[in-house]
């Protein structure tokens, strides 16, 4: 997910502007010159400045130098790069699985949700088929045991409560 500096810089500048504007609208503390708005406004203004500088490619030479130093220490592997490029969207899977956990773990319970997460991710990592199910179930039960039984974290029982 490489984004051009122009886009990331403009994004940061807009974010800074929004923070500045949002900060300026915060209610002041009566009788005091500086209130809750000062800090977000300073930070927001700073972000606007650096965002514009990044969008204008200022400071890029430092980055190129660091990249060149790194390239000295590693060999280029076109096959690995192609692999990475092909799978780059797959990187979104782990955060999506966490959102899945947020949405359904209360209803389905920890064991089922965790087993699904482990199973799906192991599959995405090209794990051996016959290993996926035992690892998904074993992993979920193990983590439940550690966190629920030993550390007393209230994990949702849901549809499949554990005997301990």
């Amino acid at each position, binding site marked *: *997910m490489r984004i051009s500096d122009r886009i990331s810089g403009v994004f940061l500048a807009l974010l800074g502007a929004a923070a500045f504007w949002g900060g300026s609208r915060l209610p002041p503390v009566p009788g005091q010159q500086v209130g809750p708005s000062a*800090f*977000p406004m300073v930070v927001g203004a700073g972000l606007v400045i650096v965002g514009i500088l990044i969008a204008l490619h200022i400071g890029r030479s430092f*980055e190129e130098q660091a990249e060149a130093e790194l390239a000295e220490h590693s060999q280029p592997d076109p096959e690995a790069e192609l*692999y990475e490029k092909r799978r780059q969207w797959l*990187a979104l899977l*782990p955060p999506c699985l966490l959102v899945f956990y*947020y949405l359904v773990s209360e209803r389905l319970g920890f064991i089922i949700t*965790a087993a699904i997460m482990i199973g799906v991710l192991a599959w995405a990592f090209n794990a051996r088929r016959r290993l996926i199910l035992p690892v998904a179930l074993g992993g979920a039960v193990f983590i439940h045991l550690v966190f629920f039984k030993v550390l007393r*974290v209230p994990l949702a029982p849901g549809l499949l409560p554990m005997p301990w």
Partner: protein
Amino acid sequence: MVMALDVLVAILASAVYGLVVGSLPGLSATMATALLVPVTFYLSPIAAVATIITASAMAIFSGDIPGCLMRIPGTPASAAYTDEAYAMTKKGQAETALGICLWFSALGGIAGTLSLILMAPALAEVALSFSTFEYFWLAILGLMCATLVARTSPIKAIAAMLLGLLISCIGIENPAGTPRFTFGSTDLLGGIEVIPALVGVFALAEVMRALTQKDIPPIPHRRLGSILKGQWALTKAYPKQQVRGNIVGIIIGVLPGAGADMAAWVSYAMAKRFSKEPEKFGTGHPEGLIEAGASNNASLASGWVPSLLFAIPGDTITAIAIGVLYMKGLNPGPTLFTEKASSMYALYIIFILANIIMIPLGIMMIRASSHILRVPRALVMPVILVFCAVGSFATGGNNLFAVLVVAAFGLVGFTMEKNGYPVAAMVLGIVMGTMVEQSFVTSLIKSDGSILPFLSRPISAILALCTFIALFWPLFAWLRRYKASFDAASPAR
């Protein structure tokens, strides 16, 4: 305190955990620490700190193992000298290479601890006289250092740091108690919890990265001879390199935001620069390995100096540790050394103990590495993902919202890393945001809105000067480089 059973068990268990996690490529020492936090929740304060110290020290060493044997660094801190170590392995000196990593890591760790013991109480004495003005500049200087040492564009580093500061603005934890940037959400009222954010940036982002990268080839079976044989001779042969590595590591550790990986890069480069035989570097020469190995472990302990004194993290590991210190009632600050002096002594002892047990446990780990490194990544990573969810749920006060925070920060960390924005600078911004704002606003209130007292007190004036030098240093460096390239080009015209 240290000899209590729970502390000893915690040290041993976290040592094994750190060794295993550090040796697995793709799992960094910071990730090992971040995933430990939910467990420290349930331990006594000393045991909690002990787990973090031990696990991080072990992980930094054991990151060298796959570097030596497979040319794949286990943690970023080993990346600087992986080629060198692997070249030694190819020459049939795997034992010596691994031995150097182990022996000089342990010595480096002890040197770093000595620096912590000597530096921290002395600095605490000075720090007791600091007011909010000095704290403000100190925090800003810390943030600026973090942007200076980042191996990328300093402007991007400043952007990442400001982003972190902006994130710290969320919630009602500000001098006026006004809800800021909460968008009506009650979950955001308490602000962004630091630990779930760090788990996202350091653990989830690693899982995401691993998913896009090719699996590593299995490690070849190798019979290893005596690990420590010849190390004493090397210690005597290269004393200068070792001491220089220790000192550089200690200095880099103290600098906020720069940690073990930076220390290793700088020390390796320095070893080559000052070596009598620089042409041997890269061919399996022990000199660079000694200096960098001594350096990265030394930086670990000295990273605790600013963390304990000023709550300014010396590296990403201590950024997490500061959260644990607050949680355990060991609030960082100079008074920690007067009011909780016994805890500090315990901390020193743990550091020394961890570095001593590193040698036998490290040898065991090296012998077992061919088995441990065969554990498929496809089975480890999914379990880590669930750990991220449950761990953040537990540390975030049993609130499912923390899981969303992990997901969001994983995405942010992954995207930033891919686009040259240093994650460590953002983390520093998040961790230090509240402190920066508090000292800034309190100072302004004290001075009635005037900025003069920020510059008129002697120590704060010095700190301010350092801050401005740090701010404009990249510009100076760029101008000098520009002039050099211009001078080089002009005779041709």
